[in-house]
């Protein structure tokens, strides 16, 4: 267990966490909601900022940022009379903000599974979100059970810089552009509506609707060679309608069908590393030196199999052998 040092907590009058707490409580307390002018007169942190000479403009910016922070942490602030005169608009916290998990009691084992699910993100990009979620779940007061889940530390890895911006764009339904490099080296700019991220055999894949091609396209995150940029028209982010579950499901089915149609067959040298890797001793006494399996992407497969190049012979597909060899040729010439 790693205990947090107390020094890291530095509550001060300007601490954002205290301001957010005051704002949340004031809005919850006043059931009819509060206007911006009323909030500026009621929240100690705002009052202090005004007293300290903060301009109206920066105060407004602070309020806008606070609303975004609340939204990001799952507190929904809305305006029931958004069309009213701007001075009369009131802010209210949505009633269903405080109802998770929906009247469900969690058991000790379920909490432990949730804890393990959060730990999957240790040192990966969603660690902060996962930990905040876990803190909330722990507020339910259930103690995780000690069980056979101990001694087990699965980890998701997200090394591609594109992961975080794509995940945010998916959550917010915002169009993005990026440069994508095909295995043949061709780079092109893509403009897509990002739908979902998948991990296929350890590789992150984006499923999206490609606006130029007019169809669903998959992109490997490791082949994105630029920053992922959100698309803006006149300073406003281009949003799209969240795709239906049916459409998302179809995209996954298509990908699965694609994988099911790609078959690779290898002959493996007995008792080599590849022999161990493919578990060729697993059958009850029936030893075979051939292994057959499906794959998603031939170039990725060639990369994996280059590790075992001396222990295998490609039976099919023919191009796989060429790809394995051309990779070695590129390595040899890059280090000549």
């Amino acid at each position, binding site marked *: 267990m790693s205990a947090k040092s107390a020094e890291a907590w530095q509550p001060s009058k300007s601490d954002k966490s205290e301001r957010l707490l005051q704002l949340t409580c004031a809005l919850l307390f006043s059931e009819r909601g509060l206007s911006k002018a009323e909030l500026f007169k009621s929240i100690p942190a705002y009052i202090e900022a005004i007293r300290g000479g903060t301009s109206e403009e920066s105060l407004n910016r602070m309020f806008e940022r606070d609303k975004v922070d609340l939204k990001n942490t799952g507190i929904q602030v809305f305006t029931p009379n958004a069309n009213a005169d701007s001075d009369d608009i009131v802010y209210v916290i949505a009633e269903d903000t405080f109802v998770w998990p929906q009247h469900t009691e969690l058991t000790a084992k379920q909490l432990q599974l949730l804890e393990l699910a959060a730990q999957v993100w240790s040192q990966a990009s969603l660690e902060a979100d996962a930990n905040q979620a876990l803190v909330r779940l722990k507020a339910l007061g259930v103690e995780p059970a000690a069980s056979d889940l101990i001694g087990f530390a699965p980890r998701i890895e997200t090394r591609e810089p594109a992961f975080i911006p794509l995940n945010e764009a998916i959550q917010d339904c915002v169009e993005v552009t990026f440069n994508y490099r095909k295995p043949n080296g061709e780079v092109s700019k893509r403009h897509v509506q990002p739908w979902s991220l998948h991990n296929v055999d350890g590789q992150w894949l984006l499923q999206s609707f490609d606006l130029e091609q007019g169809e669903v396209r998959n992109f490997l995150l490791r082949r994105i060679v630029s920053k992922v940029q959100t698309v803006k028209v006149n300073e406003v982010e281009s949003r799209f309608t969240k795709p239906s579950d049916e459409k998302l499901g179809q995209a996954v089915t298509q990908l*699965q069908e694609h994988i099911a149609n790609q078959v690779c067959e290898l002959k493996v040298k007995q008792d080599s590393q590849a022999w161990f890797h493919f*578990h060729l001793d697993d059958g009850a006494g029936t030893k075979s030196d051939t292994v057959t399996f499906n794959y998603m992407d031939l170039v990725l497969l060639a990369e994996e199999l280059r590790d075992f190049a001396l222990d295998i012979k490609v039976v099919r597909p023919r191009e796989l052998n060429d790809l394995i060899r051309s990779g070695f040729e590129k390595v040899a010439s890059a280090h000549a």
Partner: protein
Amino acid sequence: MPKLNSFNGEDRYNFMLALVAYLQNRGSVSVDEAAEHFGLDAKYIRKAVTSINEARATVNEFEEWFFFIDIEALEDEGVLSLISNQVIDDVPRLSTRQASAIAAGLNYLATIPGFSDDADLQKLQELLAAGGSRGINPLIESRPGSAEAGAEVIRRAMISGNQISCEYINQKGERSVRSIEPLRLDPRADGWYLRGYCPLHKEVRNFKLDRMRAIQVLDEPLSAEAKKIEDFEEALYVASATDTAVTVEVQPEGYRLISESKTVSEPVTVDSSTVRAEIMVGHLPNLGKLVSRYGGAAKVIAPAEARAIVKNYALAALGEDTADQIENED
């Protein structure tokens, strides 16, 4: 326990909401128990209490203090007792981002042998799906070598606290039969690892499950030395004094080479997508394989000796007629 390495303003705000809800649900509780429950230092909880008690606003001309956690009880008896709470009745629901991180973690667990049929796991997945969480969905194919056959046997040994024996093939292709005291299983993107105490070398080592076969649970229980080990380095590759520093340049397709290695300094950007870094390599002859897999997307810059190793490895791989080798096998 979550490792809260850096608590920012959002995290602190989140924790204060959670602490109030926890005390509301739980009633009076000792500060030590709360600290244990959240995996935080007790001092940290005391500071949060100060901030919570400070929360106030002027609503309809009246100054409202929203909470009161009994300060005397905390100072005298170390007990947290929520006396007054004007606003928060329940735990705030998870934000979309939080829910999607947890849902993705659960989806990932569901792909691991031993979890796929877990009824509790399925129920949690349904709960989160009903909340509209979406976005990250592992879709892991079970290819030979990825769903590790030995994992179940090793887990059995870990639960009963016994050593295992197995046949292990090392990076040079040498096979040996050895005993391992299994401590932790780490499923990772590139396969499963076993963190185990090696009675022979008297230290914790990482064993890749796809290099093991004929795994058996022994009658021998874990040694006292092995039982003492509680913490592991998160990184699988730990540098030692005999390692060589190697400068590499990688394209996005080869970033993995850097992120899987122990780097000496922060990687620097060479151009829009190329990154240069210095990595530590334990056994230099392994570099040929490590770099070759990326088929040109990773390149060794220095030292010259390392470049030569990579070049020779690639040339050897090209020169080998693998077909002949297999036919010559017994």
